[in-house]
C-alpha cells in the first residue's frame, strides 16, 4: 500500500489511476489531517460533497471509464476563487453568506481533469496582507509553529499543503501572496507569468498584478498542476498562451544566473543571509555563472506597488456596497448610509486602509503625481528586466527577509508588514514568472525559501532551472 504522507501530486494521481489507492482513501486521509490540525485555522470550510465525488471517480476508474489526468486528486482552493454553489468569502465578514454563481476558470480546469476540491483555505481578507492575520475568521497559524504566522495572503493554502490537508492547493499572488507563505511553511509556491492563468472567477484584488498559481510539495508538482491551469480563456482578455518551450537546459553548468545588487544589499543585513549565500556557493560549485546586476529601479518597486495595487483595489472593491450580495448594515436607512455603514462594518482595517490610499492616489490633482508616476516606474522596471534577461537565464534572490514572524508582531505597523513584500513584488510589477522553493530553516526552526525568476512567458524554463537548483538543494 502506497503511503499518503507527503506523497507528490504526480505520484498520487498515478496511484489512484492504477488503483493502488482509492480517491476515497486519499480524501479521507486529507480530511483527517484537516481535522487534526483544525487549530491552525488553515481551512474555512470543508466541502461536504468531496467524499461522494471521490467515490464516483473510484467507480469510474474501476469501470475503466476514461478519466482526467488529476482523477480523484484532492485539492484546496484559496477562498477568493469561485466554485459554483459553494461559498466564497474572501475571508471577509462582508462576504460571509456569498454563494458562487459560477466557477472560476482555473478551478474549472482542474475539475475537468477530475480533481476533487475538498475545502476552501483561509487567507488575508481580500488577499491583502502578508501574514494571514487579516482574516475576518481568525489568523491561520504557521505549519511548524503555533506562535508564528503562516504568511499571506495565501497562508491557509500553504499550511494545508505543508500539513497534508490536500495534495496541492491554489493560491493567488498579487505581491508575493503565493511565494511568501510557501517560503514560511516550507513548500513550493509558483507565481506564473501574468496572463498565463485566467483570472476569471478570482475575486479581484489588483487586476493588473493578480495571478493564480499552485502551491505544491515539489517543483515537479508545480509544473504538473500548472500544465492544466494555463492557457487562453475567452472570459479573460488578458490571458496569453505560453510559447512552446525550446529550452535545452539540462544542467546548472554554464547557466547564467543573476543577483540584483540592490537585493543583495538589503539581504546582507538580514539574519538569514548565510542561507542565501550558501546557495550561491553551491551554484558556483555546480558551474553556474553568477552575475551581479545593478538595478537602481529596484528600490522604486515597493512604493510603486503600494500605489498601483491600492488604486486598483479602490475601484475593484467598489462593488461590495451592501446593495447586491454583500451584507447590508442593519441600521442603514437611506442610500448614503447603506454604502457607508455597510462598508464600514463589512471591511477590515487593512482593506479600508488600502481603499482609502487608492482613492487618494486616483483622485484628481493627485493622479499624475501618484498613479501615473507609479505606472511609469512599472514600465521602467519592465524594460530593465527585459534587458537583464538578455544577459542572464534567471535571477535568484531570497523569497523573504527572514522566516515567519511571530503572531501580532507586525499588525500594529502596517508599513513594516508591507516591507515584507520587498523581494516578491518585482515579479508582479514586471509580470515575470517566479517560484519560491524551500531552502533550509532559521536558527529557531522556521522554514526559509529561495526564489528564482525568469523572463515573462519563460515559465517552463523557470520550472526547469528551479528543479535543477532544487536538485542540488534536495527539494
Amino acid at each position, binding site marked *: 500500500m502506497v503511503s499518503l504522507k507527503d506523497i507528490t501530486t504526480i505520484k498520487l494521481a498515478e496511484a489512484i489511476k492504477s488503483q493502488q489507492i482509492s480517491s476515497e482513501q486519499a480524501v479521507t486521509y486529507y480530511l483527517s489531517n484537516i481535522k487534526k490540525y483544525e487549530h491552525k485555522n488553515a481551512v474555512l470550510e470543508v466541502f461536504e460533497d468531496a467524499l461522494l465525488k471521490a467515490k464516483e471517480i473510484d467507480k469510474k476508474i474501476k469501470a475503466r471509464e476514461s478519466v482526467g489526468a488529476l482523477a480523484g486528486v484532492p485539492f484546496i482552493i484559496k477562498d477568493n476563487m469561485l466554485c459554483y454553489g459553494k461559498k466564497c468569502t474572501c475571508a471577509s465578514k462582508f462576504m460571509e453568506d456569498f454563494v458562487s454563481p459560477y466557477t472560476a476558470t482555473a478551478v474549472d480546469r482542474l475539475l475537468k481533469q477530475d480533481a476533487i476540491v475538498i475545502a476552501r483555505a483561509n487567507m488575508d481578507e481580500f488577499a491583502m496582507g502578508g501574514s494571514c492575520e487579516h482574516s475576518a475568521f481568525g489568523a491561520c497559524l504557521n505549519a511548524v509553529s503555533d506562535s508564528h504566522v503562516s504568511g499571506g495572503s495565501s497562508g491557509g493554502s500553504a499550511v494545508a499543503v505543508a500539513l497534508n490537508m490536500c495534495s496541492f492547493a491554489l493560491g493567488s499572488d498579487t505581491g508575493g501572496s503565493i511565494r511568501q507563505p510557501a517560503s514560511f511553511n516550507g513548500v513550493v509556491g509558483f507565481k506564473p507569468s501574468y496572463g498565463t492563468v485566467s483570472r476569471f472567477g478570482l475575486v479581484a484584488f489588483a487586476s493588473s498584478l493578480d495571478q493564480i498559481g499552485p502551491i505544491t510539495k515539489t517543483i515537479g508538482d508545480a509544473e504538473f498542476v500548472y500544465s492544466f491551469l494555463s492557457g487562453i480563456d475567452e*472570459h479573460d482578455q488578458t490571458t496569453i498562451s505560453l510559447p512552446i518551450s525550446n529550452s535545452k537546459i539540462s544542467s546548472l553548468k554554464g547557466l547564467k544566473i543573476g543577483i540584483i545588487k540592490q537585493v543583495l544589499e538589503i539581504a546582507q543585513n538580514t539574519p538569514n543571509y548565510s542561507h542565501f549565500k550558501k546557495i550561491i556557493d553551491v551554484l558556483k560549485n555546480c558551474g553556474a555563472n553568477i552575475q551581479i546586476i545593478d538595478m537602481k529601479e529596484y528600490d522604486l518597486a515597493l512604493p510603486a506597488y503600494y500605489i498601483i495595487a491600492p488604486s486598483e483595489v479602490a*475601484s475593484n472593491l467598489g462593488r461590495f456596497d451592501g446593495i447586491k450580495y454583500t451584507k447590508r448594515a442593519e441600521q442603514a436607512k437611506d442610500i448614503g448610509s447603506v454604502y457607508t455603514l455597510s462598508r464600514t462594518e463589512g471591511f477590515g482595517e487593512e482593506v479600508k486602509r488600502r481603499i482609502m490610499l487608492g482613492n487618494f492616489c486616483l483622485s484628481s490633482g493627485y493622479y499624475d503625481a501618484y498613479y501615473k508616476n507609479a505606472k511609469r516606474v512599472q514600465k521602467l522596471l519592465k524594460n530593465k528586466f527585459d534587458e537583464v534577461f538578455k544577459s542572464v537565464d534567471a535571477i535568484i534572490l531570497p523569497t523573504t527577509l527572514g522566516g515567519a514572524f511571530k503572531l501580532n508582531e507586525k499588525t500594529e505597523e502596517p508599513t513594516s508588514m508591507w516591507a515584507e513584500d520587498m523581494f516578491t513584488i518585482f515579479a508582479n510589477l514586471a509580470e515575470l514568472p517566479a517560484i519560491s522553493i524551500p531552502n533550509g530553516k532559521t536558527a529557531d526552526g522556521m522554514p526559509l525559501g529561495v526564489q528564482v525568476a525568469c523572463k515573462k512567458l519563460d515559465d517552463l524554463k523557470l520550472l526547469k532551472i528551479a528543479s535543477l537548483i532544487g536538485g542540488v538543494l534536495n527539494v
Partner: protein
Amino acid sequence: MFSDYEVVIGLEVHAELKTKTKVFCSCKNEFGSEPNSNCCPVCVGMPGALPVLSKEAVFLTIKAGLTIGSQISPLAVFERKNYFYPDLAKAYQISQLEKPICVGGGIKLKSGKNIRINRIHLEEDAGKLIHKSEVIGTFIDYNRGGVPLIEMVTEPDISSAEEAVEFLTKYRRNLIFASVADCKMQEGGMRCDVNLSVRKKGDKKLGTRTEMKNLNSFKSVQRAITYEAKRQIEELEKGNAIRQETRKWDDNKNRSFTMRSKEEAEDYRYFPDPDLLPVRISEKTITKAKAELPELSEQKRERYVREFSLPKYDAEILTNELDTALLFEEASRLTNMPKQVSNFIMTYVLAKKKERDNLSVFDVISADNLAYIIKAISTNELTRPNALMLFDMVCFTDKDAKSEAVKSGFISKLSEAELESVVDFLIEQNAQAVKDYKLNQVKVENFFMGQLMKQTKGKADVNKGRTLINEKLQKYKN
C-alpha cells in the same frame, strides 16, 4: 436685453448601439424584456467576473464616427469611471477618457455653419432603478446594464435652441441610416446633456457654464435651452454670478433645478481598466466599416432627385426618416413607378402615420401592399376611390391588400354583358339626359359614367364603361 448676449452651447449625446449583445458580455441587448432576464455575472458585477469587449460594438462606433467624418484612433483605451450608485453594478462604468475610438468630425447645418465634434467614445449603460409605490423600497433592473452606449461630444459651437435641434436631428438621422442605433427617444435610446453659457456679444471669454441633464426629447432640449439661456441672462443682468453646476430638467414643470454644484461634483477617479487591453483598430477594419456604411439620408436625397427625377422637396420628405426612404425604395422597385409611390406616400401614408405616435411607416403599410395599390390604380384594376378605401382598410393591419380587394368586391368586375345591360338600363331611365346628348356630349357621358359607377358600386371597369356609353349614345348624336 437678450439681444446683447450670445448663447454658447455644447452637447453631449448618448445613443444605445444596435448590437446583438451587450458590450462586455454575451447577454442580449434588448429593450422591454422581463426585468433582470438579460443578465449574467459580468453585467451584474459579480465578484471575479471580467469584461470581454464586443467587436461589434467597436465596429458600430467606428461607423458612427465615419458618418460625421471623425478620425478613427489606431489605439483606443477603456478607462474606469468610478462612482457609487445602485444601478451601476461594479461601482464603476467602463468608459473612455483619454483615447476614444473616434476623434473630431463635424456636422454642417443648413445655414452652412459647421458644428465641430470633439469625439465619440464607447461606454456601457447602467441599469435602471424602479420605484414601486405599492411596496416600500426600490428595485433594480440590470437588463440595461452593459448595453453599449456611444457618447458624442460637440465643441461649444452651437448658439441657439434651433441650431441644437437641427444638429441633433441630423446626427440622429445619421446613426439611424447607418444602422448604428435606433435612437428611440421614448425608450431612452438617445439622451442628451446640454452645456450652456452666455456672454455679452463681442466678449472673447466664455461665461460660466451649467450642465443640464435628463433631456429625453428634442422638444425638451429646445425648451431647456430657451429656459436656461433666459435664466442666465437674467441672473447676469441682476448682477449675479452664474454658478457652475449640474441642473436637472423637469419637463412637466418646464424648468430646471440645481442637482449639484461644482463643489459637490463627483471625482470619478478615472484610470485605464486593467481588465481590458488597449484596442488596436487596423486600417483594414476602418476600410471595411467604410465599405459597409449604407447610404445616408443626404446621399439618398441626392440620388432620388438624380435617378427618379423627384422634386427636391419630395426627396427631402422621403429621406427624413429611414423607414420612409426604405418604404419608398422598396415600393418603387416593386412597381417601377417612383413618382406615383412618392406621391402616395407623401399624400396618404405620412398623413396616416401622424395619426398615431411613434410608429414607422411600415406599421402603416407594407411595401407589398403599397405597391399593389399603386399598380392597381394605374392598371384600373381598382378605381381610385376604392383604392383609397382599400388603403384605409389595410392600414395598421397585417392584411394582404389584394385579397382584401377581392373580398370587398372591389375587383370582381362585371362581365361585358352585365355592363351592357346596366348601360342600357341607365339610358332607358334617363331620357332627358339622352336628349341633351347632342348639346353637350362630354357632360352627358360623364353623367352616365357617374350613374354607372353608382349603380355598380364602383365595380364597373372605367375604360370599358366609358367606351360602351360612348358607343350606345352615338345614335342620339343628331
